[in-house]
């Protein structure tokens, strides 16, 4: 079904803008049913014994399809094996915007839950009428209602009476928690048998009759153009060219790869614009600030200018520190891919995009097609961790398909292109100044966040486009640059506001855009990584200045019982922050945050070792405590939290995009190393269930606390504070040297 809302309404939901008051309660209870209230849009009983659940949220490896099946099975009182979660497709599943920001459970989970709860009641009413008993007298089990004298009728017979034709506007009662059979226990992930055993599961595994295979040839630097003619064929491959977009298409992927290598040697690229080599330097970033926003109640306000810095005169002690985070790669293990079929009038695309609705509109705009003529089916991809090359690959495939009408085109990026052309996780600088009163409490907090932009996703634009290849066409489509994010806890100010009670507070976001070819966009946890890393490091610096224990210092600055509970649980799991005596190269540290100051609470304690001789960090243990509200699927939650920890540990210890004159100078896994199996610590996680609190996603919640905990453990182990990510040996050695 199509969205009934204006573009703005959909965007507001997709960007996670928080409504307040009654509207907020309604949204919490109904999720995306607020935008899509028609019950029949969410579920159907297509045949005897089967239930189809439709969602606009896509599988990214977070297990959403399984979580939705659990929810639907519980509220419908059927076995999860009866549930099919339909693939998200423009025009036939509810348009729920992007699958991002750990919002799937909150938006789609709530909607599916309520849709199923209503459907259960409507089916029960039909059963009561048919069997001539009161609804209360019916017992449901796995799709069958039974009366006390043994008469039965199945959901599927009842559903055959016709569609519900029902608008959900208010919540229905849910199955009582005490009777839950699946929620809180979980079931095996539905998508993993095919994926783990290597059966076809991902976009590049799709095979259609007559399919051809394509590779794109990217310019050596952004904006470089092809001024000379290209051959029409290379060996058995055809060359597709539009302006400076050039691709090869062949009967097999192997031939396409080989043809791309041969054609690359023949291409004569001219011009283009190099990257600013110092783009991650605080001084460069400060020189390219476009605007500044005070952050008030989590929102970036573009009204009045930010207030003046707080004056810290009366305080016993004023501390200042600056923390930096480099550009990062999403670094999917499977390069971006798409399949496209153009029949002259309409375009069908199979993509692992996080927002098939927006992608379809953006594709239509670039190709000059009617928006209704483009259909995008979601098909799983390798993990993307935010806005990577998925959408760009879809345009690439569509351009080749337009030149090869009637032929399905399977296109995939080469590894080097994934590394060099995906949007980067933005560099950030966080300056913190706080005053410590004589009572050992923080009495003021002044925070200045300098950030590149975090959302260059392909939202349909009034003019221009955000899809990579569109800027190289003849004539080129103008590049639509990312806009600053002002919403609640969005972009660079995500978790920019400390969760602690710290007296007078001023938080300012300074938005950087240098008009260079640099492209930054959403990467897992957005600004929360840099902000929580900075805040948690600085809390330890303040605790140490106050002569206080870091745990007691944090607990002394928060009265939120859920925050206190995860901090205490993680510390207890670890057996405290004391390191075993006698090893002075070992340290322990704590990191904590509530994601977006409104979602999952996570505290992490890390123990690491860093011998002075090598200055190389070895992670030994991690103890994690998490509270994500009501637990739907404990195993899925653990997987997300541990995965978030491991990925953030990799960012923290290893990762940095080095910029060369032609763009990122990393083009493979040797030049951009990530954490490996032998570097993984033991991880112990404790989940705190809150059956009375709404379930929230947790895919990003452990990232910031992981970085904070590692930073604090490093400081304890070495006695020096490293404030610039990543903590590679050279950075640690430099900190040692500065100490001498």
């Amino acid at each position, binding site marked *: 079904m199509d969205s009934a809302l204006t573009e703005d309404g959909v965007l507001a939901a997709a960007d996670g803008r928080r409504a307040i008051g009654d509207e907020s309660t309604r949204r919490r209870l109904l999720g995306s049913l607020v935008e899509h209230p028609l019950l029949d849009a969410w579920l159907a009983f297509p045949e005897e014994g089967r239930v189809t659940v439709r969602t606009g949220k896509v599988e*990214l*490896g977070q*297990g959403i399809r399984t979580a939705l099946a659990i929810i639907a099975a519980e509220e419908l009182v059927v076995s999860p094996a009866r549930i099919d979660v339909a693939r998200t497709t423009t025009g036939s599943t509810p348009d729920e915007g992007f699958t991002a920001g750990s919002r799937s459970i909150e938006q789609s989970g709530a909607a599916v839950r309520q849709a199923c709860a209503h459907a259960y009641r409507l089916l029960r009413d039909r059963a009561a009428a048919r069997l001539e008993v009161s609804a209360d007298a019916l017992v449901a089990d796995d799709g069958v209602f039974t009366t006390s004298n043994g008469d039965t009728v199945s959901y599927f017979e009842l559903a055959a009476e016709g569609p519900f034709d029902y608008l959900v506007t208010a919540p229905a009662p849910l199955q009582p928690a005490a009777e839950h059979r699946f929620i809180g226990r979980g079931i*095996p*992930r539905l*998508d*993993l*048998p095919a*994926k*783990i*055993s*290597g*059966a*076809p*599961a*991902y976009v590049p*595994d799709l095979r259609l009759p007559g399919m051809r*295979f394509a590779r794109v040839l990217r310019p050596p630097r952004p904006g470089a153009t092809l001024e000379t003619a290209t051959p029409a064929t290379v060996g058995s491959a055809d060359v597709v060219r539009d302006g400076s977009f050039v691709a090869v298409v062949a009967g*097999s*992927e*192997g031939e396409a*790869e080989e043809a791309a290598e041969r054609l690359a040697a023949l291409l004569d690229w001219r011009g283009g614009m190099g990257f600013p080599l110092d783009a991650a330097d605080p001084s460069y970033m400060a020189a390219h600030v476009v605007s500044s926003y005070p952050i008030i109640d989590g929102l970036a306000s573009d009204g009045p200018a930010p207030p003046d810095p707080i004056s810290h005169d009366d305080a016993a002690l004023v501390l200042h520190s600056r923390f930096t985070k480099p550009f990062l790669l999403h670094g*999917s*293990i*499977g*390069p971006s891919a798409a399949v496209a079929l153009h029949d002259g009038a309409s375009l069908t695309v199979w993509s692992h995009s996080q927002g098939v609705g927006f992608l379809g509109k953006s594709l239509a705009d670039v190709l000059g097609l009617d928006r209704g003529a483009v259909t995008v089916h979601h098909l799983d*991809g*390798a*993990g993307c*961790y935010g806005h990577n090359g998925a959408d760009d690959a879809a345009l690439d495939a569509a351009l080749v398909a337009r030149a090869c009408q009637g032929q399905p085109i399977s296109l*995939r990026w080469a*590894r080097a292109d994934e590394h060099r052309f995906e949007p980067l996780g933005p560099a950030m600088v966080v300056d913190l100044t706080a005053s410590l009163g004589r009572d050992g409490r923080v009495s003021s907090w002044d925070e200045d966040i300098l950030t590149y932009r975090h959302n260059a996703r392909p939202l349909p634009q009034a003019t221009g486009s955000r899809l990579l290849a569109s800027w190289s066409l003849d004539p080129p489509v103008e590049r639509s640059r990312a806009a600053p994010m002002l919403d609640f806890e969005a972009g660079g100010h995500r978790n920019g506001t400390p969760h602690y009670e710290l007296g007078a507070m001023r938080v300012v976001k300074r938005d950087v855009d240098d008009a260079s070819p640099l492209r930054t966009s959403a990467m897992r946890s957005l600004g929360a990584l840099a902000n929580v890393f900075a805040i948690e490091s600085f809390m330890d610096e303040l605790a140490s200045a106050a002569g206080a224990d870091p745990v007691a210092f944090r607990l002394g600055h928060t009265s939120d019982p859920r925050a206190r509970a995860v901090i205490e649980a993680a510390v207890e799991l670890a057996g405290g922050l004391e390191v075993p005596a006698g090893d002075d190269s070992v340290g322990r540290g704590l990191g904590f945050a509530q994601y977006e100051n409104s979602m999952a609470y996570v505290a992490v304690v890390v123990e690491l070792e860093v011998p002075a001789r090598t200055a190389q960090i*070895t*992670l*030994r*243990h*991690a103890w994690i405590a998490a509270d994500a509200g009501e637990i739907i699927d404990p*195993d*899925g939650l653990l*997987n997300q939290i*541990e*995965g978030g920890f*491991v*990925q953030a540990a*990799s960012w923290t210890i290893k990762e940095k995009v080095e910029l060369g004159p032609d763009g990122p100078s990393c083009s*493979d*896994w*040797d030049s951009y190393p*990530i*954490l*490996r*199996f*032998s570097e*993984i*610590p*033991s*991880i*112990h*996680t*404790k989940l705190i269930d809150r059956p009375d609190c709404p379930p929230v996603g947790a895919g990003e919640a452990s990232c910031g606390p992981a970085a904070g905990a590692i930073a604090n453990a490093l400081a304890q182990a070495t006695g020096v504070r490293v404030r610039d990510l990543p903590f590679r040996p050279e950075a640690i050695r430099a900190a040692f040297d500065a100490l001498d």
Partner: protein
Amino acid sequence: MPVLYVNDGEHDLEIGSNLPLLWALRDQIGLSSPKYGCGLEQCGACRVLVDGVPVASCRTRCGDVAGRPVATLEALRATAEGHEVIEGLLRANAAQCGYCLPGIAVTLIWLAMRRPVPFDEVVRALDDHLCRCGSHPRILRVARRIFDPDPDAAGDGSRAGHGNGET
């Protein structure tokens, strides 16, 4: 024209000797378990066995494996060890996106056929594989159950590292 022996089938293919084995397996033979990740022998996603030894199929030329037995996960998963490894991974939901898993499963099955293998050696072998989702702790727990089923008896059950924590 190299003749490939893949999973006990003989394939007389019209391909060049220089073609990476990965593409012959995917394009010509229609297998989906070997994945393209890097094409550079850096990530392990394309791993298969040739003569019973793990190789990166993205950097192995068809001409060099002509006449030698190639085994992919499609065949390996049907062995006793394949069953044990795949079931172990599935029971533990030991994946997020799952893209790295077929290659990792090939390595674990290959090692399981060679038991006993010290756990440290298993971890070293897994270092040939990259996983971006952070599924390592779970994969390591599955591996420990397969290769080190009684870690306390081995005296190192409580040592640091290698994802051996339980949740």
